């Protein structure tokens, strides 16, 4: 019997209780986090490993991942914006009332009397729209570094699904205040959803296959916007879509982890400046071999253990990755709050079906589509967006070259091809818009022309057709599918930006052309 056991027996029950009480904070904290503040490499590893929220990250992180110039933090920013949107959204849900009678007034009350309500509403609005921008930028980063390759093909597809979800979430939120903007955006968007009718009408099959009207009714819960639409849109906005986006975001992150973290160039060597972003592991700890070993998980994935490779360039996630993530979180939060402090989210007059806004415009992120829609309802509303999404989905399957993954623009040629695509698409697209504005299109020259011809041949479809042909030409010229994909993607980005800008700034009443909003006729 040693001394400790004797003490156990001799101590009274009550003193044990008081001891437990004294150490309560430490034991509760310890049971939750399992470690104290980590001060050895083992503790740093286990801090990540044993934490539900942190274990989605590896215990070690590649230095390349920590370089701000590689990821630009875009994916993280998108995720943090989502977190901000969810948090501010719950706050708004407390006050918002999704009924036609009360929705507008409850938003006004959030603005005028709820403590911090106006700024929170702005945060929700701007963080939500920021997601669109940052998800697109993130997508561009992933594309240009070739990160949709080497096992990450499906994660690219998940990413495109997330992009669509971000669009739809933003759109459903746009409709909730039930002001003039909401109402007329609802009208425009439901018209976009009905646009397949143009094709089914031309083919004369609307009677049997009216997919346009079906999707409009599905969205509006009827043929015109009303209280049922608001109810439905609200349900989508606060429940269905957030659930779906959480699931897909989870899959997205999980696959990153399973794919071995971020992509990195094959020939990676740390530079002096890397010491500014990462602190190398303490070699003295001695619990990790200098050679990387592989466990069952990696073998199950059929990877050949490539021993003695790359290990030098890994650093501990705690604190290297965590401080980087925390910095990006703080930067995102600060930017959103500062922007929201100064810029108010718009709110117009109460929705009035008798007073159309002129021009009635969809939310800005759909204005590129609305511009295409003005040429042909089917092509702008269904055909071209479907084709674009289909193309985005297929990129990783049609371009399977594994050369120089993890390098921006692949190589020197890639940079040239991207620059070439940028210049050509900017010039040609602006040219097409100028032509369509100046000379009109087929309908202005041949008033009797069948709609089917215009559906097939209009500035939008010609432009998309050109993009595809040009990409095929690039593939033929360079003998590389990656270069073709590069042209395609650059031209997609340029089109989105130019069309959105054009339809936002230069389309005025009756969708007429104006050099700027200040030239719109005053009503």
């Amino acid at each position: 019997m040693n001394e400790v056991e004797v003490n156990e027996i001799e101590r009274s029950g009550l003193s044990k209780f008081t001891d437990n009480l004294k150490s309560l904070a430490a034991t509760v904290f310890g049971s939750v986090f399992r470690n104290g503040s980590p001060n050895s490499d083992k503790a740093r590893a286990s801090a990540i490993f044993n934490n539900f929220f942190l274990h989605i990250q590896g215990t070690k992180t590649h230095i390349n991942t920590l370089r701000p110039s590689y990821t630009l933090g875009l994916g993280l920013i998108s995720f943090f914006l989502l977190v901000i949107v969810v948090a501010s959204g719950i706050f708004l849900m407390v006050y918002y009332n999704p009924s036609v009678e009360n929705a507008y007034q409850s938003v006004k009350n959030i603005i005028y009397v709820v403590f911090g309500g106006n700024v929170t509403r702005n945060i929700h609005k701007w963080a939500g729209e920021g997601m669109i921008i940052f998800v697109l930028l993130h997508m561009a980063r992933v594309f240009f570094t070739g990160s949709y390759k080497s096992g990450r093909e499906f994660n690219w597809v998940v990413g495109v699904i997330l992009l669509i979800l971000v669009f739809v979430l933003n759109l459903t939120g746009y409709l909730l205040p039930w002001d003039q903007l909401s109402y007329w955006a609802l009208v425009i968007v439901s018209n976009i959803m009905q646009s397949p009718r143009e094709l089914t009408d031309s083919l004369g099959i609307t009677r049997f296959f009216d997919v346009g009207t079906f999707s409009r009714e599905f969205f509006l819960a009827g043929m015109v916007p009303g209280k049922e639409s608001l109810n439905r849109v609200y349900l989508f906005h606060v429940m269905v879509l957030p659930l779906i986006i959480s699931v897909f975001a989870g899959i997205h992150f999980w696959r990153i982890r399973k794919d071995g973290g971020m992509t990195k160039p094959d020939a990676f060597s740390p530079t002096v400046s890397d010491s500014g972003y990462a602190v190398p592991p303490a070699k003295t700890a001695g619990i990790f071999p200098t050679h990387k070993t592989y466990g069952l998980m990696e073998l199950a994935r059929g990877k050949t253990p490539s021993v003695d490779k790359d290990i030098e360039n890994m650093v501990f996630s705690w604190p290297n990755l965590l401080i980087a993530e925390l910095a990006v979180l703080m930067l995102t939060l600060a930017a959103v709050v500062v922007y929201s402090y100064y810029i108010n989210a718009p709110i117009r007059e109460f929705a009035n079906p008798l007073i159309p806004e002129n021009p009635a415009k969809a939310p800005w992120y759909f204005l590129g589509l609305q511009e295409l829609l003005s040429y042909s309802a089917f092509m702008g509303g269904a055909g071209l967006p479907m084709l674009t999404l289909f193309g985005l989905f297929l990129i990783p399957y049609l371009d399977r070259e594994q050369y120089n993954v993890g390098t921006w623009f692949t190589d020197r040629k890639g940079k040239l091809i991207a620059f070439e695509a940028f210049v050509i698409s900017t010039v040609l697209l602006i040219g097409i818009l100028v032509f369509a504005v100046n000379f009109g299109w087929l309908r202005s020259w041949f008033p009797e022309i069948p709609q089917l011809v215009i559906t097939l041949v209009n500035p939008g479809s010609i432009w998309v057709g050109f993009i595809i042909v040009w990409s095929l030409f690039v593939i033929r010229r360079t003998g590389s599918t990656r270069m073709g994909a590069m042209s395609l993607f650059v031209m997609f980005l340029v089109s989105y930006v130019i069309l959105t800008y054009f339809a936002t700034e230069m389309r005025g009443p009756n969708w007429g052309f104006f050099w700027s909003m200040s030239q719109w006729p005053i009503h």
Partner: protein
Amino acid sequence: MYSRFYLSVLLMSGLVLVTYLVLTAYDGVMPEWKHYQIEYKELLIKNAKDDATRTRAQSMQSGLRQTYLAGLKREDRCVNCHLGVDNPMMADAKLPFKKHSGNYLANHPVDKFGCTVCHDGQGSATTLESAHGKGHGAHWDRPVLPLEYVQSSCAQCHDFDMLSKNGGAKVAGGETLFNEKGCRGCHKVNGRGGSLGKTLDKVGSEPIAYFSMKHVIGDHTVYNWLKRHFEDPQNIMRNSEMKVSLKGSDSALLTMFAMTLRSDEMPKQYRDMKYTPEVKLNGESLYKRYCIACHEDGTRSLYNEIFNRTIPAIRNPAFLKAADDKTLETIIKEGRKSTQMTSWKTVASGVSDEDVKNIIGYLSEKRPAEKYEPFPIPMSQGEPNNGKNIFETHCSVCHGKDGRGGEDRLGVSLRSPVVQKMVNPEFLAATIRDGRSGTPMPPFGKDAIGLGDKDIADVVAYVRAFPK
């Protein structure tokens, strides 16, 4: 040991974040209205005459105040800044602390009526700009009414009779003006009036988007649009056919009345209106209400530059000689096709048969007893072929080659049923011979232009033979 780069990003953005969270919280704790409340409290303490008032003033709590208007289901938060509305000590204070003028609040306590019932504006807003709701950027359809138009709100709950005696003289004056200027000749209100112009029932509450502000000088508000429009309609809407040009004070009165025509009815608990049976109006008042806008006093025919046609002098004895009561009734009730004279049947205009009768009674007051000097030769002798030549020489200048008169011509249409069917041909002949005083129709007889009786009979025969 942390990366210096990320640590500095973290710390700097943390600093910015905390700063702006503090600023947001400060705005939450000290919103715009709270500064007014603090200032008001100081004013109260300064103005206190005795210790009791001073103590009371010092115990004033600041906080969000609002009046819930149960009947209208909305909140008025104006009193957060307009703190002295019912405080007699604030009679001479500056805005927004000034006491409400007059003794209106005695009968309209703020806790029942709030402010926007009379003053409009965005009651739920808590900042000056959005609460007053003025200007395009405010996106509010009912901006606060300027003092000169506030009386228009009284008519939501009170009748004009009561208002004219109890401090609502201006809005009652506007109503009188509306009735006496003959606005109802073109516009319907409450289902009664002509159909040339727009129905005015909701004009006072229509959203600003309904009004083209392009040529409006001054504030872009509905009331300013109305006022400018009453002064010069064509200046605001180029192709308006409205015939009115009021001077400053009259146009303000009429604007005030127009602003009373609102779509939403006040809930019962706010209203105090006597629904007296309608007063029977005499012929003269009815004439003013429905006819005067076009026919003016009715003694002279007028060439209207907007209609591009001549408006007949319907109270002119010479005209009345031609038109007996039956004819007048037909014209009034059926209207005149292809002219601005619309039908005044009850179903079309809401005007009762009795009122039409009264109007006819007023019109025919000056009808001469004796009809006209008899015409010496019987009309059946007229030869249309000769009449045609004479018509083209003498008549077509004003009545047009086809006798349709109408646009851009001084003469009236000779193809109207009145000329063709209702009037005795002999009367037409007498009119041609003697002319019609008070109108541009000159005498054509021997003593004047020199047409013989036979020629006149020929013209009548030609006119009556126009294909129907």
